């Protein structure tokens, strides 16, 4: 069974998707959500194959939500939108699935066929997340898990990022969040001009750097404003200096 989520802030729009998906023997509706943040929690809580994602929603729009996903872990997305000239051109260009409101049964069935075809497609997942990021720009807010569920924090409040197996630890002045992301993709999402790698598995917020002290062999010791000390590997020193020099 293909596990599907329905995300739309307008109840009639969810009704229509639910009714039509219900007629499909191979689709199961795993959940329905009325805003982006609860949809993100729904995604985190269960295995999902495809999300029918409204673009215009309060709190976190469909595109903003998509921009927060790790491409390799993301479900297939079908963007549903009433009118969005910019995004439409991008959807077409990147062959990302979308439904235009109002859509008819034929269009809906064709979309489902495409979903069935692409269930295992890695490139589709990567391109849909890349498209969402291109549309929304570098994320100013970051979706992080807490004990009370997901939360949005200001990207600027993150001091450093440290990779740990399949996870990344994001440190703010007083908290640490464990994200199931790769450091490489997180840096793309947050902007490589704002967060810069100082070590194979560590990146820092460039605005939080307080001072640099040379060590042996071309390495440096970085002191963050918070007082935290980190090592800048000589492999990344040139990149950092280039960014800071700007």
């Amino acid at each position: 069974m293909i596990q599907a989520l329905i995300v739309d802030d307008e109840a009639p729009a969810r009704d229509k998707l639910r009714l039509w998906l219900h007629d499909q023997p191979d689709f199961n509706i795993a959940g329905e959500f009325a805003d982006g943040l609860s949809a993100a929690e729904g995604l985190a809580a269960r295995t999902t194959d495809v999300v029918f994602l409204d673009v215009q929603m309060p709190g976190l729009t469909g595109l903003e939500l998509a921009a927060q996903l790790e491409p390799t872990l993301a479900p297939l997305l079908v963007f549903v939108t009433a009118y969005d000239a910019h995004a439409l051109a991008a959807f077409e260009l990147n062959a990302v699935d979308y439904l235009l409101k109002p859509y008819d049964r034929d269009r809906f069935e064709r979309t489902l066929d495409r979903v069935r075809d692409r269930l295992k497609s890695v490139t589709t997942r990567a391109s849909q997340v890349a498209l969402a990021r291109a549309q929304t720009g570098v994320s100013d807010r970051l979706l992080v898990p807490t004990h009370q569920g997901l939360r949005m924090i200001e990207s600027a409040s993150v001091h450093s990022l440290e990779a740990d197996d399949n996870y990344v630890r994001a440190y703010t002045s007083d908290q640490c969040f464990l994200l199931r992301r790769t450091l490489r993709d997180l840096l793309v999402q947050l902007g490589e001009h704002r967060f810069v790698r100082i070590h194979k598995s560590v990146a820092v917020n460039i605005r939080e750097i307080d001072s640099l002290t040379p060590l042996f062999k071309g390495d440096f010791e970085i002191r963050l404003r918070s007082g935290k000390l980190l090592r800048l590997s000589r492999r990344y020193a040139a990149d950092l200096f280039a960014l800071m020099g700007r």
Partner: protein
Amino acid sequence: MAVHLTGMLLPKVLDATARGSAEQASPGHIPSWDHSPLVPLAILWAFLWTLTSITEIAARFLHDPAIPLWQPIALTAIPTCPMIAWLIIQLRSDRYLQPSMEPPRPWFLYHLRRLPFLAIGYITIANGLRYALNAASGVDAGFHGRLPYEGIKVALFYCLWLGLVYGTLSLLRSREQSAQLARTQQALVESQLARLQAQLRPHFLFNTLNTVSALMQTDTVRADRVLARLGDLLRASLGAGDTNTVPLHEELRLLRLFTDIMEERFTGRVLTSWQIADDTLQLPVPAMLLQPLIENAFKHGIELTTGIERISVMATRDSGRLNIKIHNTGSTLATGWREGIGIANCRERLRVLYGPAALFEIANELHSGVETSISLPLRADA
């Protein structure tokens, strides 16, 4: 009037109206030139004066072929100085370059009345200079008995000049007017386009159509109802601009069509309340004035929030004024917020229709939310 309908079209139309009323307010004010006519006039003057001078030099030669060449040239060149002074005096006169010379008679009479003074001044100075040349060089400039000749020459030159000025200015004016007409037509076309776009506010339209599509699967009666309301609203929007004011109850009917549709879309997320005093129902209000305001209330209070929010509309009549308030919970104005085009439009319309007598205010409300207040005098000219 319309579904958002008032949006963009009004700014330009209103702009034009505002300009029109400003002109009425100060009659006699004439729009200035786009391009100053001074340069073409100067060229024309130089041309005319050169012709006159050549004629005079030729006449002196014919009169006395033995005369040395420099004499007639010097004698003719000397009056050029006072002539330039005269020209400058003229150009500095308000009446000279005024762009509208309709009707022509006062313009000509005004200038002809100045002719004797100018002629006397010119002849005195020009002949004074010639006399000085005379005394210095011993040449007979022959100015004895030339007063009638000089007088006629100046008068002819002046009349010819006035005619040329009039013709030139009229030509330039008509060119500028055609250019202005073209610009106005362009603006009109643009405003009509903007109006079409505004009338079909796409988000609202397509989401509503999708709601109808969803309801068709479950409840055709409700689907029909939404469709009928959407139809009414679109009809009203297509008629927008045909009328200036409508009774408040008509404006409220359109607001209700809109809120009914929005309640269907945002099922259970919005509570609307209407507190409309009976004695306000027949009062005239500018058509489609409130539509953008209720749209804003939904956009910020409902569409961008996840909870259950309230929207209320109030109308009261109070000592010769109609007071309307539209309030929504769920949003507040951020510090430094800027008015969108819908709001700017309402403000501008009220200014044009009522002047300072109309009050329009958007503010955060004490108990949370945003309130838009409008207060209108009951008579537009009050």
